[in-house]
């Protein structure tokens, strides 16, 4: 059974304010009596650790990186949304809320999204005060750009490195708390289990990645800010170390996993070049502001892109969606790219991409303007492909980028395990079935700066005087023993194939059957084949080296093992959701124009899956989504 979502009553615009007044508070002098464990130091984790420290809590922050600043939030390029209406183009909290609910194809919790839109304006103020060098107008005021899925300009940015600048801001705020001793920073520490006592989260077990030491850490509450699970696809825009392990270990301890099949395929990435490819690189969606997407009309086109005359180019997004054009939401842009490539109109040596062409923009605005807006992205493209995008169009193709699904949380961001919270990409709540561009940074910082630091007090206040469970308690000892045993087992299998080999093979299955388009036959096949590959993994894995040193094979083995279990659940969730919505496209459920066709009667709910042990499939629990404000309609971007 799912617990109550704790969504406050009352008018939508008042819910958050009322809730803040209604929940319990911990008085400033008592905050120091609580210890909070934060896992992950990306935007959601660093901002939470910093703010909790400022409020007076004792915080232990963990990252598996050598420095908190390396978290993958750093790679976000395009920007961060906020309903500031600085452009005077009709933006408002209500419009950002509405766009996000609609963009998510009506599969998110309205109250959470409204709160997100409300606090978005505070985030920009906060980050500017911290010294984030946002792009400016000549008069010194902040500049904006537009992004997919919106008809207003509400995206704030710092060149093509917005994620980097925001993360540095949050990281610096956290380091300020490290300096005053409120935040204790643990680097190179990977969480490998969650510890639960009497139904409450009480701590974690970690492995020190440089020494192999296994240690327990205890606190009054645990916050998972551990990002998404896009690397289940092997090839994705995620960093190499991004993984689901922390969230998955929590799932196995009782946290429900919600909507795992809601994964986002980003439309503008550099296409795969060869077999050795280890990751895919995103080209910011902001490029769609000025770049025009096209393919040659004839599948057997042999001329180079600059030789194809205007009349023989198929600007498929502009033709099909005149109102939004190249700025349709990500899921729509991705599916249309797949359609033209499947029809044989793909470009590049492997015919696996579409053009993103800046020739018109350069003619219109001049090369200098384009260089100023996107210079670092153009340079990145040139480094990777060896082609000059100022002279020839970029080649792009969709790639896995973000996961909307994640641990189920209530309005307070608490999972189904009391005392365990999930923030940022690790939770499921705000983006429904599709996330709009420039909204991930917004959500990570909203959760960390403005939501969790208030809502966590509601859980902690009645626990004043409780002592954290000591780390020599049998629950910690048992968890440590499990972690050690698992690592020992990886080293003892003595098979023939590396963890990367299995990861790559798993990724192919997930991409083929649980990727951009899904159908019942493929999903059933995915379940069988993932199981078979998983059995092979456990029988034929080869992990060399020792446990008491830096050993990336041990790290990878554990992450891939968890990806296997997740992949199976993704397939089961996708099979169960017999409708198309946002990034989840079931071929059986589409309109005559091949757009996603929702089934609101049967699927206007969150699917939250409950762990039943390793040998029994998870049980589905549902949270019915009610829409008080936004009217459910077929999304149209024409």
């Amino acid at each position, binding site marked *: 059974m799912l617990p109550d979502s704790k969504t406050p009553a009352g008018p939508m615009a008042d819910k958050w304010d009322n809730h803040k007044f209604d929940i319990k508070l911990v008085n400033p002098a008592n905050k120091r009596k609580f210890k909070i464990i934060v896992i992950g130091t990306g935007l959601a984790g660093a901002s939470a650790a*910093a*703010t909790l420290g400022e409020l007076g809590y004792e915080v232990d922050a963990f990252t598996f990186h*050598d*420095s*908190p600043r*390396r978290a993958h939030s*750093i*790679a976000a390029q395009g920007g961060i949304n906020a309903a*500031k209406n600085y452009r005077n183009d009709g933006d408002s909290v209500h419009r950002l809320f509405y766009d996000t609910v609609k963009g998510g194809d009506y599969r998110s919790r309205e109250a959470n999204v409204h709160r997100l839109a409300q606090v978005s304006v505070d985030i*920009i*103020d*906060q*980050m*500017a*005060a*911290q*010294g984030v*060098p946002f792009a*400016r*107008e*000549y008069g*010194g005021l902040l500049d904006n750009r537009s992004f997919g899925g919106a008809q207003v300009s509400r995206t704030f940015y*710092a060149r093509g*490195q917005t*994620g980097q*600048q925001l993360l540095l801001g949050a*990281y*610096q*705020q956290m*380091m*300020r708390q*490290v*300096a005053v001793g409120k935040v204790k920073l643990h*680097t190179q520490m990977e969480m490998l289990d969650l510890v639960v006592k009497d139904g409450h989260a009480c701590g974690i077990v970690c492995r020190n990645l*440089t020494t192999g030491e296994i240690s327990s850490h205890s606190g009054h509450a645990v916050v998972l800010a551990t990002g998404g699970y896009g690397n289940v696809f092997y090839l994705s825009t995620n*960093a*190499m170390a991004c993984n689901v392990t922390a969230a998955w270990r929590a799932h196995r301890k009782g946290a429900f996993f919600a909507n795992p099949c809601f994964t986002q395929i980003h439309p503008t990435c550099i296409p795969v*070049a*060869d077999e*050795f490819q*280890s*990751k895919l*690189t*995103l080209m910011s969606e902001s490029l769609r502001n000025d770049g025009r997407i096209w393919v040659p009309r004839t599948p057997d086109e042999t001329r180079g892109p600059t030789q194809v005359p205007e009349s023989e180019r198929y600007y498929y997004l502009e033709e099909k969606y005149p109102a939004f054009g190249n700025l349709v939401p990500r899921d729509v842009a991705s599916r249309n790219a797949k359609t033209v490539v499947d029809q044989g109109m793909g470009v590049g040596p492997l015919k696996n991409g579409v053009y993103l062409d800046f020739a018109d923009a350069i003619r219109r605005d001049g090369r200098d303007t384009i260089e100023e807006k996107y210079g670092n992205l153009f*340079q*990145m493209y040139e*480094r*990777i492909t*060896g082609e000059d995008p100022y002279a020839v169009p970029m080649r792009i193709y969709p790639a896995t980028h973000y996961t909307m699904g994640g641990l189920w949380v209530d309005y307070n961001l608490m999972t189904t395990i009391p005392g365990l919270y999930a923030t940022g990409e690790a939770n499921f709540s705000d983006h429904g079935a599709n996330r709009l561009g420039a909204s991930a940074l917004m959500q990570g910082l909203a959760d960390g700066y*403005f939501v969790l*630091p208030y809502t966590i007090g509601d859980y902690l206040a009645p626990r004043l005087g409780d002592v954290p469970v000591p780390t020599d308690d049998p629950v910690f000892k048992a968890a440590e023993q499990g972690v050690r045993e698992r690592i020992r087992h990886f080293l003892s299998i003595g098979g*023939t194939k*590396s963890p990367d080999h299995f990861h790559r093979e798993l990724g192919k299955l997930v991409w083929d059957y649980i990727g951009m388009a899904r159908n019942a036959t493929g999903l059933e096949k995915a379940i069988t084949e993932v199981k078979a590959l998983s059995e092979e993994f456990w029988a034929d894995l*080869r992990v*060399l080296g020792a446990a008491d*040193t*830096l*050993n*990336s*094979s041990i790290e990878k083995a554990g992450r891939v093992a968890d990806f296997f279990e997740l992949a199976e659940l993704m397939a089961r969730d996708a099979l169960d959701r017999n409708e198309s919505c946002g990034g989840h496209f079931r071929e059986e459920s589409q309109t005559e124009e091949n757009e996603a066709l929702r089934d609101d009667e049967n699927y206007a709910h969150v699917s939250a899956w409950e762990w039943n042990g390793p040998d029994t499939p998870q049980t589905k629990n549902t949270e019915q989504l009610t829409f008080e404000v936004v009217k459910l309609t077929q999304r149209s971007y024409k």
Partner: protein
Amino acid sequence: MSETLDLTLNVWRQEGPNGAGRFETYAARNIPTDASFLEMLDVINEELIEQGDVPIEFPHDCREGICGTCGMMINGRAHGPEKGTATCQLHMRKFSNGDTIDIEPWRAVAFPVVRDLVVDRSPLDKIVESGGYITAPTGTAPDANEIPIPKEVADSAMDAAACIGCGACVAACPNSAAQLFTAAKVWHLNSLPQGQAERFKRAEAMVETMEQFFGSCTNHGECTEACPKEIPQDFIAYLNRDHLKSKIFNRKLAGQRG
């Protein structure tokens, strides 16, 4: 389709911080020119595992030149031969068939080797911890447009803030100095109106923390040359200026002179 290369690699192997390191030679065969340098190492590691040898540990994560995790000396140059490029964005098309490539970890006393090509760069975080922030607790900020910042100032701050903290500047410096890193961090904040209140305290604290770990700058300029973000050396002059001024303007000491 891409062509392929056959290469000889001399790779530094070291089992731990206290172990004696050595070069091992590996043959890299049929490496596509479209592969990145790190993908080439992935291929070598897969072959090592197949042969039953422990793979090479090397630092990497985002593989798109922004996280700052990767970094190694490639033929004696930090991040290798291509200017303004982190190791992860260096592609094999920059090498020729038959090349021999020496691959070593960052060389600096402040960055001890953890294993093989991985080093410990935690002193960089210590510099930030000592003052690399603006004190602006959550909830205290005025409206973001309250304080206009001339575009040129914001752009200059952004040029400094582009630093990815990889440590190449230290590794390339004959003195293992961290001036370019520290200057980038200091100038990012000291150039902005929001950073003025703590300007001199920041410069003083960060320089003094830096000096606990790193060597001194003697203006060789190798740092900018190696920097994957091409952070200009000018920022070091700004750092020195603010550090010197801090000795005069440090408000903590203001009442104690006389």
